[in-house]
């Protein structure tokens, strides 16, 4: 069912680029979900996508010297959630990471690449650009999501 569009101001959060700040993300998510009356399933998927994207930034888009900040903006537009993540670390494009080739057996499985695979599966739109020395990641998540059959490659 498509939600009636009740415009709510975009919600913003600024995090320091370190893992203990993920607690702040949890608080923001709770508030954002409540303000937009998001169903529990959408909150779970948003939580997962943001955890993966922001953890990637904290792990990889991190330069030497002073702490960098990560800026999050979220808004609900009808039947989807729009998220923008901006950080000032070194250029890091998560969308160019090679999609996981899903293993057929436990023996050939390697744990890497799961995060970006999950982000790709749950988002209907994923776009990166490097602008004014900042990484800008835009994601769009449908509020109602139909799991796709996971395709094996290779």
């Amino acid at each position, binding site marked *: 069912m498509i939600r009636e569009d009740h415009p709510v101001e975009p919600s913003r959060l600024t995090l320091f680029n370190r*893992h203990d700040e*993920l*607690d702040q993300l949890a608080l923001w998510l709770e508030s954002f979900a409540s303000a937009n009356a998001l169903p*529990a*399933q959408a909150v*779970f*998927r948003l*939580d*997962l996508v943001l*955890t*993966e994207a922001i*953890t990637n930034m904290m792990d990889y888009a991190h330069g030497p010297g002073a702490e960098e900040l990560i800026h999050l903006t979220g808004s609900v537009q009808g039947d989807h959630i729009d998220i923008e993540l901006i950080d000032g670390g070194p250029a890091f494009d998560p969308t160019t990471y090679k999609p*996981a080739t*899903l*293993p*057929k*057996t*436990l*023996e050939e*499985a390697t*744990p890497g690449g*799961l*995060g970006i*695979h*999950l982000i790709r*599966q*749950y988002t209907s739109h994923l776009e990166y650009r490097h602008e004014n020395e900042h990484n800008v990641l835009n994601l769009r998540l449908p509020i109602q999501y139909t*799991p796709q059959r*996971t395709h*094996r490659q290779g």
Partner: protein
Amino acid sequence: MDILFDEASHNPKRMSLSGRMDTKGTGLIELRFTGLTATDSDNVMVDMSQVDFIASLGMRLLLSCAKAKSARGGRMVMFGLQPMVLEALETAGIGSLIPLCADEQSALASLAG
């Protein structure tokens, strides 16, 4: 995040996880979970019914331990997963690598099969 291990259990070992299997939660249990699951050949049953969130780091821990168990000739199965956690694991492709059973009975049947 917490682990409850049935000390009296032996092949299959039985344990349950509870809480959020995010970066912090996974870090809290990683050492103990690895020690309980990945260091011998006993089969393992993991009750996941009290896990209400999982991210890729948590999935990696499960995958690594299941692989180590398999390399030692044993098997790890999980059961009782909450619907969104199950969806996340299946979306990640882990459902086809580690048995994700509905309940304890089907987990036991999976180990016997």
